[in-house]
Structure formats: C-alpha cells, structure tokens
C-alpha cells in the first residue's frame, strides 16, 4: 500500500515537473524556444561548417518573457499554436507559410468567452479603417499581441493604466514608421501635428484613450472595434465635456471603474485620477449652489418689495 502510494506520488511529481519544465516561460534559459527567442543572440551548431556559431536574433522575434508570463495565454506552450517542427534548427522555411490560428478559431462560438463577444467584435472590425486598408491581413494580433495581451481594461481599477495600455496598442504602429508603412503603404503622420487642434494635448493623451474619439460607441460592446479614420473621428469637445459625458459610455463603461463613478458623492470623483471639465459634477455642491442662488434671489425680491412699499 505504502509502496503504491509512493509510486503514484512519484508519477504525479514527474508529470507535474515535466509539464512545468515544458511550459515554464519563467525559466527561459531552459525553454526550448525561449533560450534563443528571449535573447539578442543565439548559438547553434552549424552542421555544414561543422562548428558552433553565434548569431544575432531578428529583433522582431525576440519575446518579452516577463510579459509572456503575465499574458492571457500564459498557460499555453509555444507549440500549442506554432508547429512542433519549430523544435529543430534551422527552422524549415515552409513553416513560415503555415497559417496560424486566429482569435475566432479558438474563441468564436465558445460560451465561456461569450462576455467578450468575439463575433460581434469581428462584425464591427470589418467596418473599420483598419480592415478597409489591409483587409484580412489586419489580424487581431496587429493590436492584441497573443503572446503578451492582458485584459487590462477589464481588470485594472486604475484609469491611467487602462489608458496607457490601450494607447500603446495604437502607438505600436502609429508611432512606428516601419510598421505603419507596411500596413498603410505610406509614412505615418506625426500624431502631435495631426492633433494640434486639441487643447492640452499631452493631458488628453495621458488621460483618455485614442479609442474615445476614434471609435463609434456601441452599447453592447466595450470597444466597438470600428476604428474610425481621421475624418470621421470625434472632434466635438462637449461630447466628453458634459454631464452626460461620452466617457461614461466608453472609458468609464467598465464595471471596475463604473463602480466608482456611480456610487455617488464626492469620493467617487476624487478617487479618479483625472478631472474632466463639465463631466465631473458633484451633486451636493450643485444643489448647494442652486439653493444659495435661490436664497439670494428670494432675499433680494423680498427686500425690493419692502422698498417699493416703503418707497425707499
């Protein structure tokens, strides 16, 4: 009995250890793929020259192992998505041509991902300028890296973090000449110049997402994914700078942030990292100011009536 328990424990240990060893991105040095793909350079045995060689890694193929271990797909190993033939080096040239799974291949029609509404996102995305310009080649991963993506907007309670994460997705191309040109065919316009009409530009960039103006608000989706071109983007300040701010239907739509903005009172707004002229109204101050204003008017009216009666 004791012996069999020991055997089972040993088997379990081996399985677990083996499993971890195969997938641990944390231990990059011992990971079959990451030992090369997390470094600037890699070494291999050149069988033609019959000697050990060291070469520089293509910078686009270097993976951030820290981000990898935090990404939504961290539980998958490289070869769950990429061909297992990548296990040998040099990699076969045909491997580059193999189609990789798209988001919908795994997430489409999956009830456990229903809240993300991948299908609806796809419909909206097909209306976007991104799809119009680059068609099916504009894959989800252009913005949402499968390797490192984190659903920050749904998990973070820090507005600035959400904004920063979201805007970096846009800037990864729109602030990168090579990547932008590959998709659009022309050089990227300078964002600072394009947005020079926007007052306090830097503050806007830090406190709201590009998406706030560059997408349509769709009630059933968190972000519509119908990214609008410059001409159709929002350019009306009061859409956000008003009591009925559009931000409530976009950035502050997330339940994690919404909790704060709807519990009322002063703490709500104070807890937020930003202040939006016009949309941050404190009900109690508003009421107090209206009351004071009315009291003054009543006082003046009563006084005036007495003055008229007494002819003063």
């Amino acid at each position, binding site marked *: 009995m004791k012996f069999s328990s020991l055997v089972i424990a040993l088997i379990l240990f081996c399985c677990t250890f083996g499993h971890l060893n195969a997938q641990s991105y944390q231990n990059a040095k011992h990971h079959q793929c990451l030992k090369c793909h997390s470094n600037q350079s890699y070494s291999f045995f050149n069988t033609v020259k019959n000697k050990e060689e060291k070469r520089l890694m293509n910078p686009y193929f270097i993976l951030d192992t820290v981000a990898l271990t935090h990404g939504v797909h961290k539980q998958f190993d490289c070869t769950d998505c990429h061909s297992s033939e990548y296990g040998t080096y040099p990699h076969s040239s045909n491997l580059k041509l193999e189609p990789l799974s798209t988001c919908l291949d795994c997430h489409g029609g999956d009830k456990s991902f229903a809240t993300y509404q991948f299908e609806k996102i796809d419909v909206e995305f097909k209306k976007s300028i991104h799809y119009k310009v680059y068609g099916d080649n504009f894959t989800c991963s252009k913005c949402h890296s499968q390797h490192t993506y984190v659903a920050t907007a749904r998990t973070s309670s820090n507005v600035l973090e959400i904004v920063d994460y979201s805007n970096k997705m846009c800037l990864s191309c729109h602030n990168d000449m090579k990547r932008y040109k590959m998709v659009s065919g022309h050089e990227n316009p300078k964002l600072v110049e394009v947005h020079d009409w926007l007052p306090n530009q830097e*503050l806007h960039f830090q406190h709201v997402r590009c998406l706030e103006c560059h997408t349509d608000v769709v009630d059933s989706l968190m972000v519509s994914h119908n990214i609008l071109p410059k001409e159709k983007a929002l350019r009306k300040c009061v859409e956000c700078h008003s*009591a009925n701010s559009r931000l409530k239907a976009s950035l502050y739509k997330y339940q994690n942030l919404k909790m704060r903005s709807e519990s009322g009172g002063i703490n709500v707004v104070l807890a937020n990292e930003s202040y939006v002229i016009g949309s941050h109204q404190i009900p109690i101050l508003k009421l107090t*100011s209206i009351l004071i204003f009315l009291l003054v008017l009543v006082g003046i009216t009563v006084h005036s009536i007495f003055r008229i009666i007494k002819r003063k």
Partner: protein
Amino acid sequence: MSMPEKLYFYPVWLRIWHGFNALGILTLIITGISMQSSVESSYFLGFNMIVNLHNIAGILVTLNYFIFFIGNLFTPNGKYYIVKPNGFLKRPLKQAYYYAWGMFHGMKAPFPLSEKKKFNPLQKYSYVIVMYLAVPTVIITGITLMFPEIIIDKVYNFSGVFITAILHSVMGFFISIFLIVHLYIASIGKSPLENFKSIITGWHHIH
C-alpha cells in the same frame, strides 16, 4: 458746519479698473457656467472657443487685478480697505440691521459716507473678502489650471487637479453671488440708479 454736496469718490484709475473688471468678471462667469454646467454651448460658441475666451478673460482680469492691488498700495484709496478690530462684529451687524429693518423704519444710515469713510462696514468686509481672498484664490487656481502639469498629482487619494478645479469653481460661484448682491445693494440710494451714475462719473452725492 458745511458739508460738500458732492464727493469725488472714485478716481479715474479706479473707475477704469472697475469697468474693465466688471466686463471681465461677467465674461468669466458666463463662460465658466457654460463650461461647468456644460450647456450645449456650441449653439453659439464651441466649447474650445468658450475655454479660450475664459482663459483670455482670466488673464486680463488677473493683469487688471494688479492695477487694483498696486493702486491700493500706493494711493490713498487703500485706506478704505483696512479693517479695524474696533467693533469688528458689532459694526457690520448694525449695518445689516439697518438694511433689514432700520431703513424701512425711519432709521438713519448708521455709517454715513464721508471723505474718510467710503464704505459702510458690511461693504468693506465683503470687498476685502472678495478682493483679497476670493479673487486671488481664483487667480492662483485659474493659472494653475491653465498649466495642469504643475499641479500635484495626488493629495492623499484626491486628484490635485480636481481639488484645484473645485476650489476655482466654488470661489467663482461666491464671486458671482457677490456680484448679484453688489448690484442690488448699489441700487439702494436716493434713486436706484444714483450709485451706478457715481461709479461712472466718479462723483458721489451726500445726503
């Protein structure tokens, strides 16, 4: 004892300052309310135009404030703003009683205006509070809001910009209330328009 009928109460620099200040403050109140209550201002002026107008008016009123400040520092006009501890509460209360009750019951104004006394105590107190507390506060908060980068990010758990903005709006609101009361009290005189004429001509009638 002969008393002059007319007193030259408001020197030219003060009248120019006052007129300019009145226009500026009115612009600031209207644009401020428009921004804060976010009335669909784009019907007559776009939001960014309103913000620009508010900023420009704010800068002009600030510059104008220095005329008032320096004027009061170096001309005899400053003495009217000095609050004396003697009868600190009793005097303004007496004036308030006069406005609320006395003036309708044949009471004479408790602090008749003279060359030495341009303001009654209540007037003096409110002017001092507005000109040396509220206006400097809106000026300082207003300038910092123009350059939000210089504001402390967080004061405890509160956004620095938010606190500054609230202080700015609250003070702006009290200045608006002051303006309403100021205009109304100014209509108390021999005739409702008399004091308005005085601030334009500079001459004040003593009765």
